[in-house]
């Protein structure tokens, strides 16, 4: 404590020398979505502590969906504010309310609306109910929001930790499964490692530029030519490494497969969407707006990372026999596509990345929810073989999964197609032709393993296959895809919830799909198909992602 006392003494001396402190003016409306999440989280904790009997997990899920909707409304109000009056900074210029940040506020709110629905059934099945999952999800979401709006490297670090630490716990949430704890430990050690690297990068950047405020750093770099730039470049490199760990970009992806496989499946989906959204938001803002003067330095590094991420993610996913591991590598591949937009470093590239993250979040949430349902009680059976003939046993579930997988593959008439199209277009318009070619090549490779899984699901049903071949080749599949999913809603909701599978049964029977999961899946599929056919609103939305500092 003596160390901190000394610091305090010197701080007080500073303050006295400056003649008192400036009273901070805090514009609470600027951080209202975050405050709603944190306040709601505190209410959940309080209710769970004071309630005499444990409440059902569905009650907490409902409350979380409500909190998510409230923060969505607050974000949209901020959105109107920004589009009417222009972007502004708040809370002593530490928070940046601009189109880019507010878009991510909306995205995080949407994730928090969908994720509790998809998790509730799983938590009940595994007997790990309680408020904790939802509380951790809300904290993590507020961290992601702060990452997207932060205008100060120290705030970004804090937000990164608020985002990550709950995710470590969520990875180890299912304490009855050994692999869950193991995943938590691996995620924690490597995550804390990357955080330490990140904060050292901040310290070096601070030393080189004299500030941690992004706007001041950018202004400093625009005014001055740094002659001995070793410290600055070192700081920049360490920042990049820290971000790359968080968003699982190669060569900093080692934790991803194990953590995605070992974590409870809904937590995996949440982690994949939330960590990527928050990580990429801060990554884009820091590199595109704060260090544009050093673009010549960091663009080649991003180029290399993007190529490695794209190729390794797609190729290694080919040989996976576990669906969760396959999706983990495919998420690495997706991260490569988002990096395409960053590498372009243009307004178009940023909009493409934002659009990609929007679509990807719903796809990955839905996919892991299906995997969770098919995995059955115990959350351990995720082999590819388990999906054989799913199309005959549970056509609605299989069609849902097929839509999500085809969208991830970038099939036309899904949002996935436009997502890939926009980032590749941004790369081409930034003259990164080689990178765009690599991206399209890996998309073809990735399509192979998505389609393999789709065919596996429908392999026992001869008559169903042509429908999905039609979807893959881009005929007129919208009707054939939408009809089953619309009819699937009823089937899903009415699916026999009580029909839990016995462990020892050799022939997998029907797996349970709770109404909650069904509702969440319908939301995911609906966004995928609706915006896949009519993407203009979402595109316009993404193009509002103007970055300011």
């Amino acid at each position: 404590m003596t160390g901190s006392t000394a610091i305090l003494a010197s701080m007080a001396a500073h303050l006295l020398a400056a003649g008192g402190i400036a009273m901070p003016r805090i514009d609470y409306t600027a951080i209202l979505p975050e405050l709603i999440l944190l306040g709601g989280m505190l209410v959940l904790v309080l209710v769970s502590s004071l309630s005499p009997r444990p409440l059902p997990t569905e009650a907490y899920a409902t409350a979380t969906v409500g909190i998510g909707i409230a923060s969505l409304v607050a974000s949209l109000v901020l959105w109107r504010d920004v589009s009417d009056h222009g972007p502004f900074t708040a809370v002593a210029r530490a928070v940046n309310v601009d189109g880019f940040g507010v878009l991510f506020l909306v995205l995080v709110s949407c994730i928090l609306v969908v994720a509790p629905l998809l998790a509730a059934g799983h938590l009940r099945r595994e007997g790990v109910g309680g408020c904790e999952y939802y509380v951790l999800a809300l904290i993590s979401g507020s961290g992601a929001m702060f990452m997207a709006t932060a205008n100060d490297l120290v705030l970004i670090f804090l937000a990164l930790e608020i985002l990550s630490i709950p995710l470590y716990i969520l990875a180890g949430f299912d304490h009855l499964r050994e692999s869950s704890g193991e995943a938590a430990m691996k995620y924690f050690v490597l995550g804390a490692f990357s955080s330490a690297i990140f904060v050292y990068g901040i310290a070096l950047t601070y030393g080189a530029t004299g500030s941690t405020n992004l706007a001041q750093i950018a202004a400093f770099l625009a005014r001055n030519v740094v002659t001995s730039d070793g410290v600055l470049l070192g700081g920049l490199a360490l920042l990049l490494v820290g971000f790359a760990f968080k968003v699982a970009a190669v060569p900093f992806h080692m934790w991803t497969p194990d953590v995605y496989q070992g974590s409870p499946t809904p937590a995996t989906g949440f982690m994949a969407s939330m960590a990527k959204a928050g990580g990429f938001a801060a990554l884009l803002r820091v590199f595109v707006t704060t260090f544009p003067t050093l673009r010549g330095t960091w663009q080649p590094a991003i180029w290399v990372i993007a190529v490695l991420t794209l190729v390794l993610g797609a190729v290694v996913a080919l040989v996976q026999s576990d669906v969760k591991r396959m999706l983990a590598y495919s998420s690495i591949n997706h991260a490569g596509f988002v990096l395409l937009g960053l590498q372009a470093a243009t307004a178009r590239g940023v909009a493409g990345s934002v659009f990609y993250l929007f679509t990807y979040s719903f796809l990955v949430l839905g996919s892991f929810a299906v995997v969770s349902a098919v995995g059955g009680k115990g959350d351990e059976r995720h082999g590819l073989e388990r999906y054989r003939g799913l199309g005959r046993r549970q056509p609605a579930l299989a069609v849902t999964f097929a839509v999500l997988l085809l969208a991830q593959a970038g099939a036309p008439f899904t949002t996935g197609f436009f997502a890939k199209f926009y980032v590749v277009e941004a790369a081409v318009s930034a003259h990164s032709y080689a990178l765009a070619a690599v991206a399209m090549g890996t998309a073809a490779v990735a399509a192979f393993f998505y389609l393999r899984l789709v065919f596996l699901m429908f392999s026992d049903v001869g008559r169903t296959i042509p429908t999905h071949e039609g979807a893959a080749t881009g005929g007129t599949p919208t009707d054939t895809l939408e009809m089953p999913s619309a009819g699937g809603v009823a089937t899903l909701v009415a699916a026999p919830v009580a029909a839990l599978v016995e462990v020892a049964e050799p022939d997998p029977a029907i797996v349970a799909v709770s109404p909650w999961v069904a509702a969440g899946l319908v939301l995911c599929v609906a966004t995928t198909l609706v915006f896949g056919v009519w993407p203009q609103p979402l595109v316009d939305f993404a193009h509002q992602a103007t970055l300011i500092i």
Partner: protein
Amino acid sequence: MSIDASWYLTLAAALFTIGVVGLLVRRNVLVMFMCIELMLNAANLTFVTYARALDDVGGQVAVFFVLVVAAAEVVVGLGIIVAIFRRKVGATADDAHVMKG
């Protein structure tokens, strides 16, 4: 009596390197935690040194946040370790080998 700032920065860099190497080399999870703490404290030392050199209070404030985050991380980490090794004997990273990689 005053020591040049570069000495502190060099010390911080050395501490950081020791932390990185230690984390990559050692297999005991608790030692790995200590290495992470070492890295965070190296960053703290850098912050304070630059704050003094730049005569700016911002770097010192950052140290507070890093300290608290470090404590929170340690608590979560210990919680995870306790949850895992309640059923096991030792606390080495190689004991966690259910999954490949």
